């Protein structure tokens, strides 16, 4: 029998669940492999491992420090609060193909209730846990459509904050667009997984 190939690094899984206003599930993509850590993620670790300042392109397309040795109370902060569209899991309507050097979503849905908006819930970052043969961190965020119109989400990602600057560390174009009717919610889950 052919041996199952072991994963050789850090896996990233993406799931998108749409619920109606009563919480009933309308659609669920299930966990799909995400392929799109982008350069800023490794830039952070390049600085961390070496203890030297590192800059990269932030979400405003400016070069900013993603790691600096002397700062305290910072990390790869994705813990966005309610209504915060600057960091945490983010979603958008663009479908430009992913690139290693993406620094933002193509067309992010920003916080609000008008066209081009979505209402951001608070981020949840679950504790690291052994789950069967794996070790997982599950992160999730709910988005509510209060715009009065259908939203079609085509991309998702994760923005991290470091010293009041924001960096895209993950960007994925969804395998299939996800429709979020008015008053319905979309919950996006990113699971970071290691397996020996």
């Amino acid at each position: 029998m052919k041996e199952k190939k072991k994963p050789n690094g850090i896996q990233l899984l993406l799931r998108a669940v749409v619920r109606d206003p009563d919480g009933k599930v309308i659609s669920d993509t299930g966990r799909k492999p995400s392929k799109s850590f982008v350069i800023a993620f490794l830039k952070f670790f390049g600085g961390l491992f070496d203890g030297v300042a590192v800059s990269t392109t932030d979400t405003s397309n400016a070069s900013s420090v993603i790691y600096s040795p002397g700062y305290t109370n910072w990390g790869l902060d994705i813990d966005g609060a309610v209504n915060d569209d600057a960091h945490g899991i983010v979603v958008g309507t663009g479908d430009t193909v992913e690139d290693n050097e993406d620094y933002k979503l193509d067309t992010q849905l920003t916080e609000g209730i008008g066209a081009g908006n979505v209402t951001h819930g608070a981020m949840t970052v679950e504790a690291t846990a052994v789950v069967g043969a794996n070790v997982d961190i599950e992160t999730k965020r709910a988005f509510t459509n209060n715009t009065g119109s259908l939203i079609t989400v085509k991309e998702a990602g994760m923005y991290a904050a470091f010293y009041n600057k924001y960096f895209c560390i993950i960007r994925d174009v969804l395998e299939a667009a996800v429709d979020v009717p008015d008053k319905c919610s979309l919950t996006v889950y990113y699971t970071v997984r290691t397996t020996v």
Partner: protein
Amino acid sequence: MKMMETYYRILKHDPDGKLVKDSGLISSHSYVIQFLEYLEGSFKVVDKTATDVDNAESKIVDKSDAMDAQGRVDAAVGDDTYGIVVGTNAGTTAEDNENYALDTKIVEGVASGELSYQAVTFVAPRVVGANIDFDVTRPFLNEHATDTVTVKEIGIICKNTTDTKYHLLLRDVVADEAVAAGFTLTVVYTLRTTV
């Protein structure tokens, strides 16, 4: 499946500096739980403990520390406490998600069974073809006059400098690598992202 791929590569040079072996890139599949525990603490900017190499719980993220007091891998010459480390895996311990130390680390030195740890060096994340690569490298020199040292496990340990605690991030059991007297073994870890 794409992900943050990780590879190791083992090079061996004879006493004249001639390359006598290059393993090429080999898949590493052995991030251990402490890596994700670091990531969790960093994601939330909260204190986070993890099992250290002494099998005790200690802070892998201390948010009150300066950033350069945690997650350091840049060990200097002669320092076998962190950075890339190598071992003999005398107990033949298999890789496990919850490994917290090498089975049997080879210590720094010039005596039989020891290796001289050189400094850890980095090649910063950059575009390499279709990928983004970040390389971490460390040579190990066998300075004993006659005896061979056989490496059977490798890994990466990070240092929390404030508390002087060490946490294993990666551990790979590797094919036996005999390092004869005067030879140098070099381990290169490549962290790679590809969209």
